[in-house]
């Protein structure tokens, strides 16, 4: 029986294992040094905040693995020997494979800041990071202030976490406005305001210079390029992540930033595949980045590689881009492509609507020549994934999207609806006279 070995028990590796089991009878082994069982990395924050216990972040009960004949090995892979098709673990034991899937994920970026190795300086990615945070910042007596470096999705999550324990947070963001490399300025501005509402000391356009140690080798303060020294007990480094592939350096597997793969997720070595955060496409697919460190893409790559391994060779063919996040109390969803001013293409035009008092806004991107709808960012209003996916496939124009916007609303029942206002605002800005149509179940369930 063919033995499939997967390194990494995150969403990519586990999805691959599940789909291989669904489609075949192969022997499956998952090796991980992080935890005994798969858990949802995106949910670690809720454990620290007391919304859930760690066990709640595990999507499958512990009997699941045995029942589905997925063997779990706790261990750290030191070497991959592709000539003998063997893995060597750090305890010197060996695991033989017929096919190998590398799904080792990421590690937090550290850009060589002085003091980045001190006690009390940490990222937020692994379960061990959560345990460290519980030690470093259990309450506001042990941690009188925390400084977070890096204004992205993990940074704002870490800030939210610390605030729930009444720990004062200073948030250093390199950009002039929060996440404005990704978000258009109206949205970025709204999130700036929301961060301040939560009493987080947001410092835009500010870089970390140095982390200063106390006499015990613990972080006690940071200095910034604005000349400020900020006393703190914890420094959170959340300036993005990069593939966790150092252990493959001399393996003969081609590496770039991550493990280089083709569209079939194959590496340069036969029978070795890479998926998830650690995989790097030779050429970016569409507007995507070559390395996609996103939950959803990890899951999609897992599905894809499972089909290939089960004899139904399939390209990694992600559909329309989508993503989601939550900024403190504000939910964010995106479908298609809406670029920030910094990365916008010449033909891209934006329509932005923001509620006068509530923290709600949307931005739609469209081509100003053809009027083709390109994508939507939505904050505080939930939208139907399937509807936007279909409109993008059908290459609808912005006019059509506005007219049928009510079909896409996914907010809970009885919520205030804003389509009329959004369309009215679009009409007055663009001089059109679109009348939004009533929501239609018939259209929602249409098949393409």
């Amino acid at each position, binding site marked *: 029986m063919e033995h499939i070995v997967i390194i990494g028990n995150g969403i990519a590796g586990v999805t691959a294992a599940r789909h291989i089991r669904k489609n075949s009878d192969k022997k499956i082994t998952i090796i991980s040094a992080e935890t005994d069982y798969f858990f949802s990395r995106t949910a670690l924050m809720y454990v620290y905040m*007391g919304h859930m216990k760690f066990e709640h*972040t595990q999507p499958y009960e512990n009997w699941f693995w045995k029942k589905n004949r997925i063997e779990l090995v706790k261990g750290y892979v030191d070497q991959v020997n592709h000539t003998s098709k063997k893995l060597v673990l750090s305890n010197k034991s060996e695991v033989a494979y017929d096919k190998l899937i590398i799904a080792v994920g990421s590690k937090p970026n550290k850009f060589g800041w002085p003091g980045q190795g001190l006690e009390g300086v940490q990222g937020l990615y692994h379960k061990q990071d959560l345990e460290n945070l519980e030690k470093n910042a259990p309450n506001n007596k042990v941690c009188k202030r925390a400084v977070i470096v890096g204004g992205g999705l993990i940074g704002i999550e870490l800030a939210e976490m610390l605030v729930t324990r009444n720990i004062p947070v200073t948030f250093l963001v390199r950009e002039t406005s929060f996440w404005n490399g990704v978000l258009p300025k109206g949205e970025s501005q709204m999130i700036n305001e929301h961060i301040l509402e939560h009493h987080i000391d947001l410092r835009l356009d500010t870089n970390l210079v140095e982390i200063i140690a106390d006499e015990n080798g613990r972080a006690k303060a940071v200095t910034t390029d604005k000349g400020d020294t900020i006393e703190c007990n914890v420094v959170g480094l959340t300036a993005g992540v990069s593939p966790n592939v150092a252990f493959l350096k001399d393996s003969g597997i081609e590496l770039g930033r991550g493990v280089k793969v083709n569209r079939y997720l194959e590496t340069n070595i036969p029978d070795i595949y890479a998926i998830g955060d650690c995989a790097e496409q030779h050429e970016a697919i569409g507007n995507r980045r070559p390395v996609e460190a996103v939950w959803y893409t990890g899951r999609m790559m897992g599905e894809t590689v499972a089909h290939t391994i089960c004899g139904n060779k*399939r390209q990694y063919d992600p559909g*329309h881009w*989508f993503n989601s996040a939550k900024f403190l109390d504000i939910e964010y969803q995106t479908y298609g492509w809406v670029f920030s001013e910094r990365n916008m293409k010449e033909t891209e035009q934006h329509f932005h609507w923001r509620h006068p008092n509530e923290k709600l806004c949307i931005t739609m991107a469209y081509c100003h020549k053809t009027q083709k709808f390109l994508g939507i960012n939505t904050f505080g209003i939930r939208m139907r*994934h399937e509807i936007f996916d279909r409109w993008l496939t059908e290459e609808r124009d912005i006019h059509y999207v506005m007219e049928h916007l009510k079909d896409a609303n996914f907010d809970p029942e009885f919520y205030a609806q804003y389509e009329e206002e959004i369309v009215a605002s679009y009409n007055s800005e663009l001089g059109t006279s679109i009348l939004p149509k009533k929501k239609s179940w018939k259209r929602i*369930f249409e098949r393409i």
Partner: protein
Amino acid sequence: MSTYDNNMALTGEPPKALNTGQKLATLVGMIGLGILTLNLFNLEFPNSGLWLTISLAAIFVGVVWFSKAAYGHKSKGIKNDGVWFKSMSSRGVLAWMAGIALTGFYIVLYFYPQYLGLVKDGENTGVIALFDPLSKMLSGNPASQWFVYGTLYTVAILAFGIKFMWKYRHNSYEKIRTVSVMFFQTAFAFIIPEIMARLNGDLPYYDLKNMWPLNYYNFERYRVNGFIDAGDVGMAMLLFGIASIFIISPILTYKFGKRWYCSWVCGCGGLAETAGDAFRQLSDKSKSAWQIERWVVHSVVVFVTLMTTAVVYSYLGNDTSKYWLTKSTFLLGVGTILTLVFAWVMIYKRQELQKDAKYGAIGYFVVIITLIGLHFFSGEGNIFIFKSETLRTTYSFLIGSIFSGVIGTGFYPIFGNRVWCRFGCPMAAILGFQQRLFSKFRITTNGGQCISCGNCSTYCEMGIDVRAYAQKGENIVRSSCVGCGICSAVCPRGVLKLENGPLEGRINPTEVLLGNDPDLMALVNNK
């Protein structure tokens, strides 16, 4: 995992402490409860009307003030910070103390009301005497233990209902739903029956929203006689009771799912959603708990059906000239209805039921038919193989008192707030059966947006592993779902939506999650 939990304990004080406002509010509420307790020990107060008012007002104000202190200064949004760090909401010492106190209260209430001060044929004493003025004002009669219970129950739903609305003030669904349970409890369960008793002394106490089989006693001889003796109003109520089961509830459940009852109208649900909200995360989500749930709750349905059939049968006559409904026509009627339902499910819905549900249905159907058959071989006074009175008292003790009260509510802080609704309520099981097979209601999963975080499953009071469906892109169509809407509220990525839509597309098996464009032809060719 265990090392992590140890760390949590070792790092010292829980990060969640009460603020000053919450402490003061707790004090006020405790004074209210204290007055009741003093009365319990027969330390009688001279002006009971005044003291009762002070006591209930203090409890109410205490809870509302506590809520304001807890949520008032925070921005709108999900308020679950520290739920698993607080003793009360994570099965800590406080939770066990509250559980034991509540359980004790229910045991006294159901089985030893004399300790609450109930005196038959004389002046009440103790706590019950304290409630006499209010009861006399409403119905003209002195209070009973049930009046005391009903009043406290209503105060709890109102006060904690306000707390719940404060907590979910960003969520219109939750706010409107809570106003609804507060209204139905106050008007239908509390005030209207008392006033009806004042207007027409012959009418049995009837909470109109409480339908069979939740009120398993509705068709007992004394009640049916009471309805008939009370004239047109009584007959109308009796007919309404029958129509609720066979006409009103199927229509509403078809249109809205069983939530129209379980989380919008029902009193048990009302208490669970308001006073019990702090305990929703304690429900057991394991697959084995689900298996136990299905067997236990459906057994209760069989039990209540047999019991009611037996009770009605026992007082019907044999002579068609006296009354059209005789013992044998009644039994035949019950048998026919069950057979029709069974045949319909087996013919049209077989493929939707999982294997064990199918076996369960077959098993129970055979049992009922066999028992009805036994009738023809059993003598007068007996029905089936039991005495009807034995069935009735057993049901009333085991299900009506122990399950719904002592375990169902007393154990809120240990097993969660919907133990009764999930494992015991025959009404919920029947509505759930309809919801699963014949309803427009579903929880829609939003394409591929689930991140498997587990908030939905954790906060599902019915112990549904919501995430198991959501992460596969499947809609949630489960008989036990009461439609409280909290999974949708706590989802950080906007993945879940409760909605009533067309039957087609309600259950959506998905081969590949949305977002991954499969080569569909290749998939088809390889199948």
